Each structure stands twice: as structure tokens, then as C-alpha cells.
């Protein structure tokens, strides 16, 4: 039987405790440094960009004179590209997610598709840009257009939408599926009447996160050759005469916000760097707002639904 702890053991414990406390401080410091550095950088961006954030900044075209330059063509371009991306990625991604979660048999083909989706999520965005350059721009002849850019970003965020859809579907308990079948529903009725509507919130979360990623992407858009100096707007999608809708804009050259920011950042004149900061603030506010919305949505779903 050992005697009660000796003074030596007490000293050892004290030393262990000291190390533990030291680490607590280091951990907190690492966290704070990480957050403070980013906060400092964002503040710098906001302070630098603030003087340029006037209403005219949003309603002016880019210009050779920094003070007169704005982001009109860039945000309109971003909006239209996102429209194409959303219209492609959401149906395709949700359908793929539904298939993998609700239909796919457990076989090698399904396994390959699953591994492939994981792998696509890890492919650098610039590679998607090269794919688009070779395929959409030249092979399909879409040119350096809004259509090419929108499709490129749709492919880029497809894995995000698929994974989010699957996770949302998985959260619906099996008893709901059985209940639908028990009432004579077919598989598609079970999926389209019950499982998908019940998981719509979770799917939305993934879609928003995907779109926020797409809106900030620069590299693949550069690769397909988006122009940076666009002093006009694309053809309006709504026209005055029959059939009132025009898809001419899909073929138009364009620029987007991150490209505009990249262009201004790369200029040596300081006046343009202020514009870059202002564009950065707009971009940052947009992506962070979208993500915050998604996180809030997910939090709400978790609290609301109790299966």
C-alpha cells in the first residue's frame, strides 16, 4: 500500500496543472489571434472602401477615372450568372441527391458515384475553369458568355448541393416513408409529396451555401476569359414585343464582382485600390449574409423539427 501522496507527487501535479493552464491560454490566444487578424483585415477593408460606397458606385460602369468607376455591370453580371447557376445546379443537384438517398441500390455503381461526388468537391476551382474553357467555350461554342460562366459555377457547386440534399433527406425518419407507402403512395409520390418537402429547409441551406461560394469564385471565371472592362449591360431578358422574353443575354460578354475587384486590386494606382476595397466590402457582405442566412436556417430547422 502506498502512503498518501508525497510532496514530490504534489509538485508533479502542480507542474502538470501549470502546463494545462498554459495551454488554455495558448488555445484562447490562438483563437483570438485568428479571429482578431481577420477582424482587423475586414475592418481595414471596410475603412478603406467606405468613402467609395456611394449610391453612384452601384449605378456606374467601370471607368478609367477611379473616382467615377462603379460596379453596375459587375453586380448585374454576378446576378445573371447566379441565375444560370441556380437554374442548373439546383434541379441537377437535388435530383442526384434524391437518387442517391432514396433510389440507389447498394452496388458498385452507386459506390462509384458517391466517391466521385466526394472527389469533385475537392477539385480546385481553376480546374473547373479549364474544363469550361475546353468544353463550353470552344467545344460547345458558347463563347465567353454568361451561359458559360453560369454553367461552370453550377458544376463547381454541384457536389455541395448533392451532399446537402442527401444530409437533409437522411434526417427524415424512415417511419415517414413507411407511412406514405402504407397509404398506397408510389416511391416518387413518397419522395415528392413527403420527403423532399419536409427536408426543403435543409436543401435550401446547402443551396445558399453553394451559391455563396459561386458568387465569390474568381479563378474559373478568369479562365473562361471574362472581360474586365464592360461598360454596358447585357440585353434585358424582358422585351416590349412578343414573346416578351429574350435569352439573348445568355450569350453576352459580361463581368462579375470578384473579377472587377481582382482587376482593381492588380492596378498600381492607389485610387483603384480604394475601389477594390469597396467592391470587396460588397462581395464580403453578400457572401457572409448568405452564409449567415444558411446557418440561421439550419439552426431553426434543428430547433423546430422534432421527429
Amino acid at each position, binding site marked *: 500500500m502506498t502512503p498518501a501522496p508525497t510532496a514530490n507527487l504534489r509538485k508533479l501535479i502542480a507542474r502538470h496543472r501549470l502546463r494545462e493552464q498554459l495551454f488554455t491560454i495558448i488555445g*484562447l490566444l490562438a483563437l483570438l489571434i485568428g479571429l482578431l487578424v481577420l477582424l482587423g483585415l475586414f475592418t481595414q477593408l471596410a475603412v478603406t472602401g467606405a468613402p467609395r460606397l456611394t449610391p453612384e458606385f452601384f449605378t456606374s460602369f467601370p471607368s478609367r477615372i477611379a473616382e467615377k468607376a462603379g460596379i453596375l455591370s459587375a453586380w448585374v453580371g454576378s446576378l445573371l450568372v447566379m441565375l444560370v447557376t441556380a437554374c442548373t445546379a439546383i434541379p441537377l443537384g437535388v435530383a442526384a441527391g434524391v437518387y442517391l438517398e432514396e433510389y440507389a441500390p447498394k452496388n458498385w455503381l452507386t459506390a462509384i458515384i458517391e466517391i466521385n461526388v*466526394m472527389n469533385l468537391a475537392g477539385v480546385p476551382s*481553376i480546374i473547373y475553369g479549364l474544363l469550361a474553357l475546353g468544353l463550353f467555350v470552344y467545344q460547345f461554342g458558347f463563347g465567353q458568355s454568361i451561359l458559360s460562366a453560369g454553367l461552370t459555377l453550377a458544376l463547381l457547386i*454541384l457536389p455541395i448541393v448533392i451532399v446537402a440534399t442527401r444530409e437533409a433527406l437522411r434526417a427524415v425518419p424512415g417511419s415517414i416513408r413507411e407511412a406514405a407507402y402504407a397509404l398506397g403512395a408510389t416511391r416518387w409520390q413518397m419522395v415528392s409529396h413527403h420527403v423532399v418537402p419536409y427536408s426543403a429547409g435543409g436543401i435550401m441551406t446547402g443551396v445558399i451555401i453553394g451559391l455563396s461560394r459561386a458568387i465569390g469564385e474568381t479563378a474559373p471565371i478568369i479562365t473562361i476569359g471574362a472581360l474586365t472592362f464592360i461598360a454596358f449591360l447585357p440585353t434585358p431578358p424582358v422585351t416590349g414585343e412578343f414573346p416578351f422574353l429574350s435569352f439573348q443575354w445568355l450569350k453576352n460578354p459580361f463581368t462579375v464582382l470578384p473579377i472587377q475587384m481582382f482587376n482593381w486590386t492588380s492596378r498600381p494606382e492607389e485610387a483603384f485600390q480604394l475601389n477594390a*476595397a469597396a467592391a470587396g466590402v460588397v462581395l464580403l457582405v453578400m457572401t457572409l449574409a448568405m452564409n449567415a442566412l444558411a446557418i440561421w436556417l439550419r439552426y431553426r430547422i434543428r430547433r423546430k423539427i422534432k421527429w
Partner: protein
Amino acid sequence: MLNPGRSRSRRLRERLIETLLFLAAASSVAITFAIVFILVKEALPLFREVPLASFLTDRQWTPLFDDAHFGIMTLIAGTATTTAVALAVAIPMGTVIAIYLSEFASFRLRETIKPILELLGAVPTVVFGYFALLVVTPLLQKLYPDLPGFNMLSAGLVMGVMIIPYVSSVSEDAMRAVPMHLREGSYAMGATRLQTAVRVVMPAAFSGLAAAYILGISRAVGETMIVAIAAGMQPNFTVNPLEPAATISAFIVQVCLGDLPHDSLGYKTIFAAGLTLMLFTLVFNILGYWLRKRFREIY
């Protein structure tokens, strides 16, 4: 009332829908094939002009000069240097933050920090590029006046900060997945939180931590805008982070910014560079996937 005709048409409709859904899922495989096909198809003509041996061993990358050299190692050196700088920041910081959040922080602090980390992962990289070139480089120049305006150090540092959320979030998940009874076993022996974290939780979460680091590497290798903006786009065979150099991805951006006719030499080189990049990320992805699968299977 059973109606055989209606039942047949319903079955037909179900089959049709299932086929459409399958095609949607299979399209993801088609994307992978398209990527590989396009990269190989467009890069192949280059290898008819440049022998593979000189592609791999030449120490210069000057494809658009009259005296053209095609040594991919030049671009790989740039990629490796910026990646190494980024990991030197992201792995220690990300791991310490993960240990802190998983083993030390209160529930409330953890639940507050995790969404913030997630938000930071969504910041567009072009914004980070702006920081690297216009904020961090001037700061570094105050400490070291000889630093050129474009340099790999600043790009790597900012890239490291960008990657911290990925590394810490995956590491934290892996450590949280270690069952509580293992920790209790350690505490019951008189271990402190730190001893438990380092000697029991981290070894138990090893493959998850490794997957987190691999994810970090994969992000750093493929990252484009930060290096294109802040590290300079001129190929330069060096591993000195204080110098400017182009990474694989930055070179692609540089070529694409210029006029790029189809079938030009520049056009072929970016696909060769892209193919190299794709091979690297593929290796890291497979490794990461395998490791993640392993740590899920343990418990």
C-alpha cells in the same frame, strides 16, 4: 378499385422518373470524365512538341518566350513553397484551436465559435488576395524592407489564415468523435485535460487529424487567387518564400488574362499545368477520403 391500365401507366411513369434521377446522379461521373478528357485532350499536343523528360526535369518554365522551356518543376516549386508557408501557419494554429474547442472550451463558447469558423471559410479568396497584396505585404516590408512587392511569404501566410477554419473544423469533428469513456479512463488515472487531449484523444483521432491536414494541403495546392494576386505570376525556380514566383494555378491565370487563341502554345500549356494540378489534388483527395473512412470505422 383496381385498374390495370392505370397501374401500368403509373409503373411506366415511376420508371421514367427513376431513370431521370439516375441520369442526374450519373452526370457527376460525367463531369469527372469530362475534366480528365478535356485536360488530356488539350494537353496532349504539347507533349508531341515537348518530351515528357524535359517537362519533368527542365528547370525553366518559359513557354511563351522564343527560347521556350517547359520545366513544370518551376511551377511545382512555387506551389510547394506557398503551400509549405500556409501549412506552417494553418496546421499548428488549426490543431491548437481544435484541441481547445474540443477539450477545453465550454459548450457555449464552442457553439458560438463553430458557426463563425464556418463563416470565415466562405470569404471569397479574391478578398484574401487583396489582404495579402495590399495589407500584409506592406506590413512585412516594414519588418524586412528588402521584401519585394510580390512574394510567396505574404501569399502563403494569408493562405494559411484562410485554411485555419478547414483544418480546425475537421480536426475538431474528429476529436469530438472520440468516445467520452476513453477520456474518462484517462481522467480516472489522474491525467489532466492536456495530458488526456495529447496522449489519448489525439492518438485516437489520428486518422481524422491526418484527413484534416490533407484537406488543408489540398486546399493550399489548388488555391489560385491569393497567389495570383500576391505572389506574382512570373515563373521563378525557387523555394525561397521571400521571392516572387508563380504557382501552377497562378500561371494558368496569367495566361488566361492575356489573349488566348485556341490551339496556341499558351493554350496547350495551361492544360498541361492543369493536368499536373489535377493529379496532385487527386492523390490528396484519395488519401484524405481513405483516412476519413478509417476514422469513421473505428467507433
